[in-house]
């Protein structure tokens, strides 16, 4: 009897253990099983099956043609059916990504990942992304077009989820032992808010406040405020342009877009190019598709979780975006009356807060409750419970809080902008469409068959003063935002005489522009290179645009390196191959090509030099401060060589710029030699730089990392580690529009699919795929991979 009992218990225990998740380790039996486990997600390489599905909810047949890159082309008879099908097929390829993004934005990751995700969840909920999405929902549903769009998409996603079984769940659900939940309309909107947070959610105000306390206002304005040439929208009357001031950052994502007029192109029609740069992920951030119904036929990339196309083209026009980088957030000091935080000081009186109690379900733990207090200046993100996270030098009192005023929180309907853009036939349609795009503010480039245009579109707040870069006082009505720049007055231009429009995250407008738009703008080097190249360009074609997107010439290196080399004695370099290194630098063409060794030396030298000059000033123990941008360093090296800032450097000969430059050079060379050996092939930029495309769930085995990429921050092809062009697109307008594009990944979100990362080699090599723009489902110009038909 004992024997039977022991063996039976052993069997049951073994089955139980293999069916149970331990920490983050998946239930092994379930995951390894061929009938329910990950093997089910191994997609056949040559899966060309065509089939049809009956779906409740659509009104007429929808045909989905998959081309050889697994891009779906959707043909429907109504808007509702079209977006229903978009929801279904996007979920089919990207469900886990959609779910993960929506859960991240709404602060619900702890439901899957447990305690470890709770801190992040609390932060996202306090930022008020869900609050913002709920605010937007009413507006979206009040518009008939966007209501159909959103409800159709939602129903489509849910139709896909409902036909899943445990065996066919995306592989991540199996690994984390969870299941997809019903998609809600608000999930789409909170996904849009997550994008807005990525592009406009900086918190530099706290660091600037620290810098103000440590250095004083004069130093701040000396180090951080300047005018830049090459604003997106230049002053009309002047030749070379200066622009309104802003903080510029050296690490801004490097998006580019431009369009050239019919006069500059070889075939007499405008050409448009766009490469939005973001932190690169797998699955790809974007999902390619074509959407056709009786009123529209658009091709481009969409955001998984959001209906419509964001960057793309239709039969008449093309459009694209770069981040406007404008400052659309402000942090306010809030003074609470007492520890209940029920009231706060405003205009000499006590105003009530609005409370939002947040419940967090924590996997494997107990529920957690947190209250966010909302003021007229937005949600209080930091208060007595988490002040330390602000990094403020002078810690705030328990009765103090910091609220976040953000255009993202205000009701808006960005879906309407996408809806109208996808159907835009001309400049007027484009202007009408982007007026709906409030946040994140973007530089929308546009071209139709005759015109080109650029608009910095979004809700730009008006302030009373120049305190936009510091903390503001939540008790003073004077510190409130004073309204917005009217949508038809945001910076724009149409068909300029120079024959092109362009943007690269730089300062938005020149001095002649009547409104003040501050921001965290990119340095002007990419913009300068783009504009100078387009100035020279004639008879351009698609390939000219492609090559410009891949351009790795560094305006910054060209500006500064000759001056740096003046300080170096080529015969007195204390490391082997000194003369050779010097010669390579002196004869460098300033291109960050994969074979360039000078690019590697310059980068290391430049980094050491900035540390050398600014390190002793900015690295004060325990104080977070922003570093001056590269332009300040350049100006010290090239013009302001006896700058007072040099005096702070701890060097043997205090204040001697030459010594600092030489010390940085030697240090950089020693470090390079230690890491890459003697000066030689291993110092080539293509071996030193890398590109890392990280899995969205942070699973290293599902990520990709490789060397052999050209480009650098501040070159047009701005690839830097995890950041790079998330989609490259060129569209040639004409009697028939032709599009070209490439993703740093692929169409599928399934790591078990060939199409998960199949586009990476072409992306790395700077090639573009021709984008198949079909007129109808019967368009048989090329071989299709498979056909999926939805039947009511």
């Amino acid at each position, binding site marked *: *009897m004992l*024997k*039977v009992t022991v*063996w*039976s218990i*052993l*069997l049951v225990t*073994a*089955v139980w253990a*293999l*069916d149970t998740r331990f920490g983050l380790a998946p239930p*092994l*039996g*379930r995951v*390894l*099983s*061929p*009938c*329910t*486990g*990950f*093997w*089910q*997600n*191994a*997609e*056949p*390489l*040559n899966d060309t099956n065509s089939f049809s599905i009956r779906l409740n909810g659509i009104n007429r047949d929808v045909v989905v043609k998959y081309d050889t890159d697994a891009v779906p082309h959707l043909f429907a008879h109504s808007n509702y059916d079209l977006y229903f099908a978009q929801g279904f097929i996007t979920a089919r390829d990207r469900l886990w990504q959609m779910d993960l993004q929506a859960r991240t934005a709404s602060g619900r990751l702890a439901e899957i990942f447990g305690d470890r995700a709770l801190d992040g969840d609390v932060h996202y909920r306090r930022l008020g992304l869900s609050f913002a999405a709920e605010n937007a929902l009413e507006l979206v549903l009040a518009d008939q077009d966007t209501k159909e769009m959103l409800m159709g998409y939602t129903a489509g996603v849910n139709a896909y989820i409902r036909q899943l*079984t*445990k*065996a066919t769940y995306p*592989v991540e659900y199996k*690994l984390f032992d969870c299941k997809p939940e019903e998609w809600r309309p608000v999930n789409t909107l909170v996904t849009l808010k997550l994008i807005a947070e990525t592009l406009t959610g900086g918190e530099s105000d706290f660091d600037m406040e620290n810098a103000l306390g440590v250095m004083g206002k004069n130093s701040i304005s000396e180090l951080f405020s300047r005018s830049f040439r090459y604003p997106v929208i230049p002053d009309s009357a002047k030749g070379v342009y200066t622009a309104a001031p802003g903080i510029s950052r050296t690490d801004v994502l490097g998006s580019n877009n431009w369009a050239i007029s019919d006069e500059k192109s070889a075939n007499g029609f405008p050409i448009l190019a766009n490469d939005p740069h973001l932190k690169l992920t797998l699955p790809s951030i974007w999902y390619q598709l074509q959407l056709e119904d009786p009123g529209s036929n658009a091709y481009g990339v969409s955001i998984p979780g959001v209906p419509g196309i964001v960057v793309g083209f239709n039969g008449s026009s093309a459009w694209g975006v770069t981040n406007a980088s404008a400052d659309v957030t402000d942090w306010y000091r809030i003074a609470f009356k007492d520890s209940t935080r029920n009231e706060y000081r405003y205009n000499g009186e006590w105003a009530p807060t609005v409370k939002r109690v947040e419940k967090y379900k924590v996997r494997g733990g107990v529920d957690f409750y947190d209250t966010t207090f909302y003021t007229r200046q937005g949600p209080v993100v930091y208060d007595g419970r988490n002040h330390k996270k602000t990094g403020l030098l002078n810690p705030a009192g328990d009765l103090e809080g910091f609220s976040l005023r953000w255009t993202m929180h205000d009701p808006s309907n960005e879906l309407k902008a996408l809806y109208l853009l996808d159907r835009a036939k001309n400049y007027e349609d484009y202007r009408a469409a982007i007026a709906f795009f409030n946040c994140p503010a973007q530089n929308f480039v546009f071209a139709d068959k005759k015109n080109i245009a650029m608009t910095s579109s979004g809700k730009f707040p008006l302030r009373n003063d120049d305190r936009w870069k510091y903390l503001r006082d939540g008790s003073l009505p004077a510190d409130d935002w004073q309204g917005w720049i009217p949508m038809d007055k945001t910076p724009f231009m149409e068909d300029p005489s120079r024959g092109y429009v362009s943007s690269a995250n730089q300062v938005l407008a020149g001095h002649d522009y009547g409104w003040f738009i501050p921001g965290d703008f990119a340095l002007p080097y990419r913009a300068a290179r783009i504009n100078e190249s387009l100035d020279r360009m004639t008879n351009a074609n698609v390939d000219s645009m492609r090559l410009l997107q891949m351009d790795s010439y560094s305006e910054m290196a060209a500006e500064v390196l000759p001056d740096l080399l003046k300080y170096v004695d080529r015969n007195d370099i204390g490391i082997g191959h000194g003369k050779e290194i010097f010669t390579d630098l002196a004869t460098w063409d300033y291109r960050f090509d994969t074979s360039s060794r000078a690019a590697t030396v310059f980068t290391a030298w430049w980094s050491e030099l900035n540390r050398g000059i600014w390190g002793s000033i900015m690295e004060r123990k325990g104080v977070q401060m922003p570093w001056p941008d590269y332009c300040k360093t350049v100006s010290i090296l090239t013009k302001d060589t006896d700058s007072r800032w040099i005096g702070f450097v701890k060097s043997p000969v205090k204040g001697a710029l030459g010594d600092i430059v030489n010390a940085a050079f030697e240090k950089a060379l020693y470090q390079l030699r230690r890491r890459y050996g003697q000066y030689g092939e291993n110092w080539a930029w293509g071996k030193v730089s890398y590109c890392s495309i990280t899995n969205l769930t942070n*699973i*290293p*085995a*599902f990520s990709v990392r490789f060397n052999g990429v050209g480009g650098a921050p501040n070159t047009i092809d701005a690839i830097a580690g995890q950041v790079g062009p998330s989609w490259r697109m060129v569209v040639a307008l004409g009697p028939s529009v032709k599009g070209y594009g490439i993703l740093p990944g692929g169409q599928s979100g399934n*790591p*078990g*699919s*060939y199409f*998960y990362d199949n586009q990476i080699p072409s992306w790395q090599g700077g090639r573009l795929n021709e984008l198949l723009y079909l007129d109808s489902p019967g368009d048989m110009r090329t071989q299709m991979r498979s056909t999926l038909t939805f039947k009511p």
Partner: protein
Amino acid sequence: MLFFLVFAFGLAGAIWIPVWWSFVPVVFLAAFFTDKGPRHSFWSGFFAMALVWVSLILQRSIPNGNILARKMAGYFSLPHWTFLLALALLVSGGIGGLSGYCGYLIRQRLRLSPR
């Protein structure tokens, strides 16, 4: 005989019942009713179920060019995807064998109890 029974019903279970341990009662009952010796019961369960899983896995993974298997091997910090295959073999074989052995043991127990 037991081997073929387990293979046939284990395969059917794996395909039609969406629970990874569906073969446990199958092997158990097969061993119970065929009433072979302890070793026979264990090894028939082991090899038949291992064969079922390995065949089904290869049928999925080979058309996939083993893309996912390689990535999953990385996920589990294994040097090669065939280690995953071996792991699946051990899990299916081990549980299959154990189920067969338990089926045999209980049959013996029931046979003894009337005395």
